């Protein structure tokens, strides 16, 4: 059986690897972007000079032939679902028996005047990076539109080359459509500490053409003109499915799939950013363009393609990021301040330096733990997950909180401060019963 995979990102490649583990099927991975799989999340580090492109490839180049995974560098122009054929921009068509669509995302453009000028781009693909590089020489300023994870990455990238950056963010605090207010305020402060020109509550009106088809300035909603040689569009991403429209494939915002990642067409599966789940789990979104869900979906797709039907289950939500120097980890359900449900109680501790915080969310009535939000402190994924899965009571979590601490050795521990804060807020007298130690964490994880 020949399995074709369109897209060599984390979802497509994880699927290819697991199909190889599970079977002897012929596998072809097709990409127009690069010859080999690289870590998209590391694009920023190439630009900043932390790594070279080859350092971002998780597998050495011999890995693919050794594991009999064929790679084809081409752009799929058309999928002939009736005859199970792929048509490319170059070379012979390719016949498949089963097809996995893992085509990823594209940067959002909301119809701004000038959004297709030269020097205007998002940051998603390797080509976007090349484009950024090409425009960086002698660049007077970059304006970045959108206050998410990619926006701040792009700002950090330009900053590393001493190129001034202006950020236009619609929200009143950075990323407060995802983070609770205190954490948003922390990130906002930190961005300004680095000297970025951060404009909150500001939006893009239009991008100005320099007369030669190249961006030379932006005009904001408030009417200000900002001269710049580059405009970064980082207002989110959406599924990259345009070339599949009107092909008989059921597409909404993304490729619609059932619990087994099957599309409406037999033998055609989809996984990763490009997918819109028909039945997302409670509290989860139908489209989740995240590295981790892409990896999990790729693995699930491999099982289903190989005939072992397993529903996609992304488990308990987790994510992480880094805002300049501040690391961020989230486990479980952490809504924004404006969308905080009535029964959610917050225990929020912040270090006096304003760069570290620990937030625990729990149910006001039952005391069940609901979520962890960490800034500048590392927590152990499996420990938090076990507490969340078991619906452990907040006070049991607090007593054992040190089990979750994953900061390096000799780092100061703040769990006692969190417990003291809880005692102060509730008038209780909870005492810490654990220390940060691998043995204790393992005991907890191995116990029932």
């Amino acid at each position, binding site marked *: 059986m020949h399995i074709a995979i369109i897209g060599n990102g984390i979802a497509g490649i994880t699927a290819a690897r697991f199909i190889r583990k599970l079977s002897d099927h012929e596998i072809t991975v097709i990409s127009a972007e690069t010859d080999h799989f690289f870590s998209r999340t*590391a694009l920023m580090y190439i630009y900043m*000079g932390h790594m070279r492109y080859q350092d971002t490839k998780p597998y050495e180049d011999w890995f693919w032939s050794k594991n009999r995974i064929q790679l084809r560098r081409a752009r799929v122009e058309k999928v002939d679902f009736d005859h199970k054929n792929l048509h490319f921009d170059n070379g012979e068509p390719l016949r498949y028996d089963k097809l996995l669509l893992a085509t990823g995302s594209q940067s959002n453009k909301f119809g701004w005047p000038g959004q297709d000028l030269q020097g205007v781009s998002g940051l998603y693909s390797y080509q976007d990076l090349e484009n950024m590089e090409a425009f960086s020489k002698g660049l007077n300023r970059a304006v970045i539109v959108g206050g998410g994870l990619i926006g701040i990455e792009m700002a950090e990238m330009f900053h590393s080359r001493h190129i001034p950056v202006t950020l236009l963010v619609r929200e009143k605090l950075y990323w407060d459509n995802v983070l609770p207010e205190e954490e948003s305020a922390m990130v906002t402060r930190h961005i300004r500490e680095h000297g970025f020109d951060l404009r909150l509550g500001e939006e893009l009106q239009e991008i100005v053409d320099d007369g030669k088809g190249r961006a030379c300035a932006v005009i904001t909603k408030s009417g200000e003109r900002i001269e710049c040689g580059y405009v970064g569009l980082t207002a989110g991403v959406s599924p990259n499915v345009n070339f599949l429209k009107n092909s008989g494939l059921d597409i909404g915002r993304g490729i619609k799939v059932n619990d087994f990642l099957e599309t409406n067409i037999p033998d055609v599966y989809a996984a990763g950013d490009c997918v819109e789940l028909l039945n997302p789990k409670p509290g989860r979104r139908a489209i989740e363009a995240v590295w981790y869900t892409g990896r999990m979906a790729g693995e699930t797709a491999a099982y289903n393609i190989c005939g072992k*039907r*397993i529903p996609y289950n992304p488990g308990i939500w987790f994510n*992480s990021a880094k805002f300049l120097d501040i690391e961020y980890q989230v486990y479980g359900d952490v809504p924004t301040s404006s969308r905080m449900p009535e029964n959610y109680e917050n225990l929020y501790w912040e270090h006096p330096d304003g760069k570290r915080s620990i937030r625990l969310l729990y149910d006001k009535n039952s005391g069940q733990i609901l979520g962890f939000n960490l800034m500048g402190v590392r927590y152990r994924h499996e420990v938090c997950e076990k507490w969340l899965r078991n619906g452990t009571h907040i006070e049991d979590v607090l007593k054992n909180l040190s089990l979750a601490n994953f900061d390096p050795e000799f*780092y100061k521990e703040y769990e006692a401060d969190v417990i003291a804060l809880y005692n102060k807020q509730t008038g209780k007298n909870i005492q810490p019963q654990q220390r940060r130690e691998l043995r204790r964490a*393992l005991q907890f994880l191995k116990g029932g």
Partner: protein
Amino acid sequence: MASLDPSMSLANPVAHASLNTPQKLGLAIVGVGLLILFVTIFGLTLPHPALWLATALLALTAGTVLYARGAYLHLPEGIKNNRVWFDSLASRGVLGWLSAVILTGFYVLLYWFPAYLGLGAKGEANTGIVALFDPLSLFFKGQPASQWFVYGALYTVAILAMGYKFILKYRHNRYQIIRTISVMFFQLAFAFLLPEFLLRMNLPYNDFKNMWPLNYYFFESWNIQNMTTNGFIGLFMLAFGVGMIFIGSPILTYFYGKRWYCSWVCGCGGLAETAGDPFRHLSDKSLKAWRIERWLIHSVLVFIIIVTIATLYSFFVKNPDKYAVTKEMFIGITAILFIGLAILLYIRPKYVHNLHKNVKIGAALIMLLLVAFTIQAYMSNAKEVFFVDGAQLRKWYAFAIGAAFSGVIGVGFYPLMGSRVWCRFGCPMAAILGIQQRFFSRFRITTNGGQCISCGNCSTYCEMGIDVRAYAQRGQNVVRASCVGCGICAAVCPRGVLRLENSAMDINERTEAVRTIHIAADQVRILD
């Protein structure tokens, strides 16, 4: 993007750098210090050497301190790897190649042509750079300097000044700060001051932290005689050295991994972690490099064991009645040790469960052969074991490994192959500690569930060339013989995935293949 390599530009080798005033001033002051050293290397004997020496050492230290403060203090705390791969010095550009040639050249002079550095022939006064260091040497021990004194002093200054820079660079990270203070302390106190003090007291030179087999002359007859003829302190040195090899070091390695030595105490490690830090990303991460590493480092280990057995054998042959230990006892101990180790490979399969069968057989075979050769020599009453002249073998080891590998290549190639070339490919001490770490240690780097994004920062900044990401993205513990526990992978990880840990609880499961697969095995079986 790959079309233009800014680091190879001659006109503007540091393409993206923009130095601030303290950095420029610092570099200028370092330049003055280097200039003084350079003119003396080229044979100039300066008048008032004490003044010039003080100026040079002070300039090197103060200049580096000033540069470091300018480089880091105005920036918020955090990882400082911007533009590393564009930097000419740090990414094998023009400055990198230039400094590799200069460093290598200096080591060649140091080891094989010290006269060119100004070392006076027997009885004659020193000239050049050695003469420059005479005042300091006279101050410490009342004798003029040797080329080794020059080297030791410069080495110490390098670790102290660059250690300060390292601390500022990682000032958000307490593990890095404490570890760096430790290597600075051991270099200054144990490698530099204490041996000088011992010489002044007319006692044998001894660097207590420099153990066999890194210290390859420890069991040579002149050293043993030195230690056994110098009263209590001499005997203490002997007992401490042997005790560290067989008791102290295995116990510490069991609890903490080889990092207690390689990145907290060792002088080679100290230089690599401080002066070598800007080059750590240049190590080769390929599987091929790992294969070469295992062959090379274990070959050096076998080499030094052969040399040492040969040396000790002829020592006991030549001194039959002088010591409480006899030739027979020595052979007995050797036989018990190696046969015991060979048996251990088979009776503790738990600890060696994913060791390749060929490696097991190979290691056992080598150890039994060593014993067989020794017994054969004894039975035939030979003067030499292994049918070779022990003194000749020793000479070859000192030349090829002691000088060429550890010194010339080990440090000279920093700007080309990274800071741990010697530690990774050659050091027999690292080989022994590595074997202990791999099989008898609680140490490992754990990974944080599913949080890895495969970015590659950990692998890139691993000075030992370990592909850390390969483990992290599978949720697997990192248990590698070569890991020196510097902790930089955990520091540069942008998602908080790695942590250095010690625990006996799961000691036999440390190396288990995949810890966190998203789909549990039982889930698959149920639906099958």
